[in-house]
């Protein structure tokens, strides 16, 4: 049975020059699991918000959306609220109340459900979602993954028939993100709830989805089962292509267009059926591109006297002109490591040298003029009312005159392609734009060591590529860039060296090819697919190149 029909929806924000959505039409049957994808600004969020009546943005709108055969605008308000559930990107924004039980019951209270029935439904939901243990906890004490699960649970408890999710895993680490996706597919399978999830990263979600709706420039470009994506031509633009699972990317690049492989297993079968195993290519030994920029020796750190060590006896060397990626699980101490290098946290033993000088010898702010840190949430670096104000603030705090600061800020904005954002409030920008603004601000201080905390979090493929370009530019200028990240694909593609942080210390450091091909769990999907066939290949591009070479050799 059809539950949702979107008919020729065209939408334009007030004052905008072009339509955010133009003639979007599709329909979904009850119980379907659909993935909505496309680059930033393709209208995904606008579409989802138009379906959820309470969140509909103001603007010019044509066309109609039907929920269960009734136009959304004419729905009874209780059906509109309870029947269509909405989960936002940042779980922190979605949580309203201070206790888990209250968060779960909040929607039911609003609907006027009697107290006894709320008790039963909340209890049921808490045990289904595994939230019993934290039922009486404060919402603020939960981990990010649990918070998002709570958001999902507190919407599901209202018994929706249609769930809308706007990039629900963008703020989660890979493990929490795949758990969340698994939960979502369980909801659709076991409860028959129809799901539309907007996503950037398709690796986890595509194999469980029934349908992919691909948007580009406000239109639906593709609408069909995931495996049919192979038939889609002319969509080699990065926003979609870069988001596909590794198996699909490899298969597509080789021109195989029917029954696209989606999982690692399918990818392996695909390669095995076509190519014979080869020997690993020789890789020259690594030559550091510059002098040591960051040297840490025996560094140990803990937050309190009686707390366990977060970093213990950590040693590493990062060279100028190098992009160094530190990988590690949740709570491995990645952010702490950056805090210690940037001097925000003080190690209780060990020595850290920046450009050959011990960080204890840097006086005042001089250390942070050399080492700059981009935090996980780039919006934390903004303190001004507009981007321009923020960029100027960075320069004037260094004693540069107002006029010069203004011209230098504008010049930097041109370089980063954010000139048209200068007069906006930093919070009125998208995730990718915000990061660019933050980086622009950071780099106005001309640091020689740049620390990035989870720089790819929440970014789409195109923004990731731009970030990589910026980083390349920095290392070419001789700066050392250290990124701590969960994103193994990004590290494999772009880093000069990768390191694994485990139990407070660096346990292995090597070039991405050697680093990942020796790991079996902590490695890229491309490497898992190509293992034993093209050993040593860790990126999709690498695997594709070997495939092409093998084909040419035949």
């Amino acid at each position: 049975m059809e539950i949702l029909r979107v008919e020729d929806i065209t939408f334009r924000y007030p004052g905008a020059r072009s339509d955010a959505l133009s003639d979007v039409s599709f329909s979904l049957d009850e119980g379907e699991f659909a993935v909505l994808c496309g680059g930033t600004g393709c209208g995904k969020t606008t579409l989802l918000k138009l379906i959820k009546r309470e969140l509909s943005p103001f603007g010019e709108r044509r066309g109609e959306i039907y929920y269960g055969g009734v136009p959304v605008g004419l729905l009874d308000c209780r059906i509109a609220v309870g029947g269509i559930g909405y989960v936002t990107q940042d779980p922190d924004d979605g949580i309203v109340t201070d206790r888990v039980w209250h968060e779960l019951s909040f929607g039911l209270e609003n609907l006027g459900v009697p107290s006894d029935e709320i008790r039963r439904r909340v209890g049921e939901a808490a045990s289904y979602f595994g939230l019993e243990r934290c039922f009486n906890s404060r919402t603020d004490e939960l981990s990010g993954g649990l918070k998002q699960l709570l958001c999902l649970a507190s919407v599901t408890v209202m018994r929706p028939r249609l769930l809308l999710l706007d990039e629900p895993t963008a703020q989660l680490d890979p493990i929490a993100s795949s758990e969340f996706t698994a939960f979502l597919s369980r909801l659709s399978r076991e409860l028959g709830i129809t799901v539309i999830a907007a996503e950037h990263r398709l690796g986890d979600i595509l194999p469980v989805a029934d349908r992919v709706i691909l948007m580009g420039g406000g239109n639906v470009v593709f609408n069909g089962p995931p495996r049919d994506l192979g038939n889609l031509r002319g969509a080699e633009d990065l926003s979609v292509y870069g988001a596909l699972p590794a198996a699909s990317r490899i298969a597509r690049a080789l021109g195989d267009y029917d029954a696209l492989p989606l999982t690692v297993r399918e990818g392996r079968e695909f390669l095995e059926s076509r190519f014979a195993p080869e020997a690993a290519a020789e890789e020259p030994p690594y030559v550091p591109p510059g002098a040591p920029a960051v040297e840490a020796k025996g560094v140990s750190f803990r937050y309190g006297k009686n707390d366990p060590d977060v970093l213990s006896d950590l040693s590493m060397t990062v060279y100028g002109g190098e992009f160094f990626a530190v990988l590690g699980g949740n709570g491995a101490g990645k952010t702490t490591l950056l805090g210690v290098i940037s001097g925000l946290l003080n190690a209780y033993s060990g020595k850290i040298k920046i450009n050959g000088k011990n960080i204890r010898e840097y006086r005042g702010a001089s250390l942070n003029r050399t080492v700059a840190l981009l935090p996980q949430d780039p919006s934390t670096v903004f303190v001004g009312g507009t981007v321009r104000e923020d960029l100027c603030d960075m320069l004037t705090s260094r004693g540069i005159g107002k006029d010069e600061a203004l011209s230098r800020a504008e010049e930097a904005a041109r370089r980063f392609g954010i000139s048209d954002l200068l007069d906006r409030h930093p919070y009125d920008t998208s995730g990718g734009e915000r990061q660019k603004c933050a980086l622009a601000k950071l780099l106005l201080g001309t640091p020689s060591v740049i620390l990035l905390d989870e720089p790819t979090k929440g970014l789409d493929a195109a923004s990731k590529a731009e970030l990589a370009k910026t980083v390349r530019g920095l290392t070419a200028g001789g700066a050392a860039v250290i990124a701590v990240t969960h994103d193994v694909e990004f590290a494999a593609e772009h880093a000069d060296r990768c390191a694994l942080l485990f139990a407070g210390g660096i346990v292995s450091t090597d070039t991405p090819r050697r680093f990942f091909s020796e790991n079996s769990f902590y490695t890229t999907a491309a490497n898992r697919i190509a293992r034993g066939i093209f050993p040593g290949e860790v990126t999709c591009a690498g695997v594709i190149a070997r495939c092409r070479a093998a084909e040419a050799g035949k």
Partner: protein
Amino acid sequence: MGDIARFHPFPLFCWFAAVISVSVFVPNPVIGVTSLLGGGCLLFVCRRGRLRARTALSYVLLFALVTLTNPVFSHGGKTPLFFVNGTPVTLESAAYGAGLAVGIVSVLLLCACWSEVMSDEKFMYLFGRAAPKLSVILSAAQRMIPRFLRRMRTVNGAVSALGARTSQSFSDRAAQSMKVFYAMTAWSAENSIETASAMKARGYGLCGRTSFSPVRFRAKDGVLLALTLALTAVTFTGVGTGALGFEYYPEITGIPSSPLALAVYVSFGVLSFLPCFFRVGGVLKWKYCVSRI
């Protein structure tokens, strides 16, 4: 906390309201001492025997301060102890000071117990139904506070790591803190809008809102409530008929000992120790059960 905090908020609230109002508003020495002992005992039970020496010392100091300074403010009373600069320091005013000090310390003790037992959650339960909007604001504010504190630390770290500060001087640090605070305010205003749309998306503002709480009223709560109400009624009757009247000025009167007064002492005594009795009873029952297993 243990068992006492697990009572239903309503009987607990009634108990605190009765005991605190009697100790605040009835200046009778027997009542004062009873509630002092009851409050101290309850705090001891609530904190499971962990009463810090510093806290205890501060109560003693407060006691001494109030007792000793009272003669400075009031010179009434018939029995001068000695004269300072020609003004008499009387026995009555010293006694009044001691009585006042007993009252103040016992109220402080009871309030400390209140803080241990009546969590914000219980408070919400009591007043949330009557004022749904207020309780939403209260709950949302409680949710935001730890989030804001964390955000403030993060922003401060981020700004410091940019080398925004020119020196470690106080004025520079204050200027940075101010900047951070503005940034956090802007961020929180922005996030409020997001939270509000999350509320609307989940139907906030529909008419006929109900109110849910996981708290349940058990038989034990009924017993506490009934006992509290009965004992309070006896106490209030005694207080209201003036059976507990006690005067310091101009001369200390005898402690009232009419039958009604004695009945009030007993019932207020039981009332003051009521939660402690429940706690002790619970412990004994547990021990008895365990020994039988």
